[in-house]
């Protein structure tokens, strides 16, 4: 059937069908997109710090993605959160402990407050060595 053979009725029918199909496709696309909408992902709480045997006794290793520092002694692992207990800034590692660049709080190497305004020690994070020998640090 050539275009010239298309009757007015058929043309309108074709147009209607095209419009309905387009609406259907767009509507279905919108529905899929709506159902696929993701809220912000929950913050990560489990961090793989690498092979546990890669931490030497006496070492202090920064895990900037947590942020935390892993302290390895002969007794095992301790992880200190580097989130200042005053207002939540990231404290800096210093030879004498930790200092907060925002408001000047100081903490000793064990995370105990030696200068305010922070009133609480740095949070000790839970650590675990998995069966495959990797150290994990948990923020909650």
């Amino acid at each position, binding site marked *: 059937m050539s275009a010239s053979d298309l009757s007015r009725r058929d043309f309108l029918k074709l147009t209607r069908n095209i419009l*309905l199909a387009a609406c259907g496709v767009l509507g279905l696309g*919108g529905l899929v997109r709506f159902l696929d909408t993701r809220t912000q992902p929950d913050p990560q709480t489990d961090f793989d710090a690498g092979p546990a045997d890669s931490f030497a006794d006496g070492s202090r290793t920064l895990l900037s993605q947590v942020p935390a520092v892993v302290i390895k002694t002969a007794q095992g692992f301790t992880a200190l959160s580097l989130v200042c207990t005053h*207002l939540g800034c990231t404290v800096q590692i210093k030879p004498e402990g930790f200092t907060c660049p*925002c408001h000047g709080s100081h903490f000793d190497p064990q995370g105990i407050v030696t*200068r305010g305004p922070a009133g609480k020690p740095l949070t000790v994070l839970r650590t675990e060595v998995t069966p495959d020998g990797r150290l994990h640090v948990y923020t909650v």
Partner: protein
Amino acid sequence: MRRLIVIASALLLLTLLGIAWWESRLPRPVALTPTLTGQVEYCLTCHADIAQISNSHPVQTFGCVLCHGGEPLALDATLAHSTLRGGSNPSDFSVVQESCGGDKCHSGTPTSYSDHIQRATTSIQATYAGAIASILYTYGAQPDLSARYAVSAVQDPLSTSGITSLETFDPSLQTNPFIKLFGQDCLNCHLEAQPLDGQAYTRFTGCAACHTPTQAAGVASNTQIHKLTTAIPYTQCNTCHNRGNYDLRAMTFVPRQDTPTDRLHNYYQPIAQFTTCEYMLDCIDCHTRTEAMGNGSLYSNKLDIQYIQCKTCHGTLTELPQTRTLSDPNDLAFRLALLNPVVDLKLGDTILVTEKGEPLWNTRVLADGTYQLVGEATGQVFNFKPVKGSGCLQDPNEQSSAACHNCHSVVR
């Protein structure tokens, strides 16, 4: 019927295409979850280029909404800004408690050195109580110089000065024409007031009037600047001070007529007497936080809260200035030095302190018994000696600045 379906389909299609086009114009959201709030905000989608306001307020910790308000998830500028606190200035006193308050922020206790809002809002710079009381007394509207009114009503239930509250000064309730004129023409220099027109007066209101250095940045009126600092240069103080006088006969502000181009001439008005240190230092090098922001109590006059004299740093013929060797890691001196690190203070350093024990944290006593001051705004180093042991001819009982000016004023 079929025609209706076609028309409805066409309209629906156009609507869907319109929505798709509108969505394509929206920016891709840039999410930030500040540690203090834990709530996602999309402000950085449009404002990623704004400089961090200060080292004490990192954006990763504070975000934007905690201080500024606004709609954190909106991508449309009008909607996002519809609930901003204080417009572009969340430190305006009308919203400062909500923006900057909190017991861990700026409405804490005096012992934690975080009672800034209480101090600033009760300070003479905010209440203007001294000027108001003086005018009311001068024109017979009150029997003495005790403050009864402030620019805005303010309470101080824990008053240590004896003044527990000040009422709002309303010039329209006054009958004396001069007092009415005072209300009309002379309430431009308190911290709640919009500044006068002109570059020399450009400043914000509230905390930002002093802590956001519009003059140092050279910004024009209405230009935004995203910065908070305790290193306040004298030029910022000059937006209110030293830019002219209030003529009490005409009851109007008279701008100074000179056009100074250097520090020596810019600092003080032509008629003023001052010493070298008074113009080489910045205002905040001598006027402590208590003098500038008050101590949280209401006062009738700035003289009731200001107490720094030349002898605070120089001593007298018979007494050396007061000093303190820093032995407490929580000494306020360390906090102030952290906020403006022009000096590297350490435990064991000996600094000058005021008669009220306030640390002049940017000074230190040198091994030879002389003193050193590092300019808080300039970083410039000044060495000076005590009066004791010098050839100074002062009367130890006469310590007003005018007495010192008799011999030490600068000629210009």
